[in-house]
């Protein structure tokens, strides 16, 4: 930071408070205040008409209390949590790997690079509602492009004999979540890839030259130079990727509405329903805090574990 040694009168530096005031006001009114309010709301039963303090009942009903069916907790809560874990565990690692591979491809010296970069980047720009509609059509079981392609590809007696047919994608409880993952992979050329690309371009040639002298091949260079040097970026993309995946909403809302049989009822969708369709503001607030807690634990664990695999060039700095 280019700090100058000149010590200015205190009053000048206090102007800083004035300039950050818009954010301070916004922080209090739109973030900190609502956070407190949300915590309080989560202890109430509130349907927009009247609020009743219920203590930790919302949390109990979600997580551990016996429900009407004799099971533990709220079945839809657990279902949506499972769906979200499934989606996150599949889409984030696949997406990260895809983005990194793509960035490495686009980091080569080839002709027409700007064109390729544009082509790979464009899908990530498509608004979520529009891309959801696109993929509903591509994944349509009978006439969708993907299944027409699969049928053409596997148009053999073997397939018919084995009784195999292409999956019904969004209409199948087995394939609905993989469908959402598949669709998310269309966007691997987006922001994450560009961040990887910037990271790859920041690796000095001297590292690769040294590795060559040491007799490293292409894989050795990747394993011992590229990968260690971009671990901070992988870490950054991983943490933000999980936070993002956990909040996936629009695709599920538009494409399946949570179906079939709640197989794509993602956590954010369940929360939205509770709040804005069923007006269970207390329960929805409790859901929000459980989500927040899960993400905090995850982020904390990641930060702790990151010491083992993330290498910062030139040691830790602030």
């Amino acid at each position, binding site marked *: 930071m280019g*700090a100058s040694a000149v010590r200015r009168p205190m009053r000048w530096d206090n102007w800083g408070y004035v300039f950050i005031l*818009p*954010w301070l006001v*916004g922080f209090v009114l*739109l973030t900190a205040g609502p956070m407190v309010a949300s915590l309080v709301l989560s202890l109430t039963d509130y349907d927009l008409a009247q609020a009743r303090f219920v203590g930790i009942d919302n949390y109990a009903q979600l997580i551990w209390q016996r429900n009407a069916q004799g099971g533990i907790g709220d079945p839809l809560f657990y279902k949506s949590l499972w769906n979200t874990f499934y989606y996150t565990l599949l889409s984030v690692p696949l997406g990260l790997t895809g983005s990194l591979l793509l960035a490495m491809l686009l980091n080569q010296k080839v002709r027409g690079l700007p064109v390729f970069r544009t082509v790979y980047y464009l*899908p990530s720009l498509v608004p979520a509602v*529009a891309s959801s509609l696109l993929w509903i059509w591509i994944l349509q079981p009978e006439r969708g492009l993907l299944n027409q392609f699969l049928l053409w590809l596997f148009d053999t007696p073997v397939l018919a004999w084995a009784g195999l047919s292409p999956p019904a994608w969004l209409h199948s409880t087995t394939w609905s979540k993989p469908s959402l993952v598949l669709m998310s992979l269309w966007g691997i050329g987006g922001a994450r890839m560009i961040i990887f690309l910037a990271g790859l371009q920041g690796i000095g040639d001297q590292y690769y030259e040294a590795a060559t002298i040491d007799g490293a091949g292409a894989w050795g260079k990747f394993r011992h130079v590229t990968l260690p040097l971009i671990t901070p970026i992988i870490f950054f993309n991983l943490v933000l990727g999980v936070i993002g995946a956990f909040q996936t909403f629009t695709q599920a809302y538009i494409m399946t509405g949570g179906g079939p049989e709640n197989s794509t009822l993602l956590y954010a969708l369940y929360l939205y329903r509770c709040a804005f369709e069923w007006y269970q503001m207390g329960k929805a607030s409790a859901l929000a805090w459980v989500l927040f807690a899960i993400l905090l634990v995850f982020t904390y664990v990641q930060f702790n574990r990151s010491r083992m695999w993330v290498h910062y060039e030139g040691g830790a700095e602030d």
Partner: protein
Amino acid sequence: MKKILLYILLLSGAAVFMIPFVWTVSTALKTRQQVYATPPQWVPRTYRIQEAGRSIPVNVITRIDAPAAVVQLAGGPRAGQVIPVARDAIALRDNVALVKLRAPDPVPAQILRDMPAGLVQVRYEEGGQMLDRHVEPAELIAVTDPQWDNFRKAWVPVEKGGTLPQAFHVYVLNTYTITIICIIGQTLSCSLVAYGFARFRFRGRTTLFLLLLSTMMLPAQVTMIPVFLIWKNAGLVDTFAPLTIPAFLAHSAFFVFLLRQFFLTLPRELDEAAMIDGCGPLRIWWQILLPLSKPALTTVAVLSFIGHWDDFVGPLIYLNSPENYTVSLALRLFQDQNASEFNLLMAAALIHIGPVVLLFFLAQRYFVKGIATTGLKA
């Protein structure tokens, strides 16, 4: 050799990434029949046949792959029906044709006409009746006939033959209004806050800045409900206020961060020189830093445009009346009412996609620059 492999990878990957777009455009220009055609048509075509000197539009039903015949069933539960049957399924015994159907016993039938392989079954309307005919492929005249009208149908309101309560330009205008107000609000407020963090060493600065950065990790759901209740109690639900006012309160930690990083690269001597000339801190921001920060401000403006043009959850929560809808909400409504009209749906989706893609081509480098900053360290 390695280069060739690389090109093959890049090109095939690019093809896979582009196919959904091509397919969307292709679908948007099709008629309803073409949408459901097998095999899928990339370039939508319509077919005509010449009959008695007239050119008649026809729908191609199927292509006869193996020799077949049209027969009239003379027995069994479907007696009297006229159906096409594969030649293999017909056995002649004592001059009576026996047709093997799904029933266990062959059914007697009368052969009406033979259909050699290679014929195409077409259907067309004449005098209010649907007629079937089998024609030689050469008789079919292919016409490329893109249905530009689909875009008009998607655009116009219900009283002009569309399906939405308003014409699309109402939604486009709403979205632009929100987006432009937000761009102005965000560039102004975020750059002001960034200036505060970059140039003044007040007490608690580091803590506050970390607090600001940590809000990037906060899931929106945690504050969503109370913030909604605030706007509801203020009577501002179903107005643009909840969607635009936060933009003036630097409600985007990322933009503040991005602009602060940029301000840090500008030499402090500039401010100091201006200070000596008697400039106040506000004028330094407005007259020295902002003009020098055009690339960063453009990046913020571009990313802000994308964010608000795409936004779905915000409008979904706050806007109720169709006349206030944004494009993304309108598209959702359109989907509700045209669930299986994929040609119209794709045309409407393209209306949503168009402006973003256009902006990307106009301001490509600002996208990449802004995003690449995210990954770099503070």
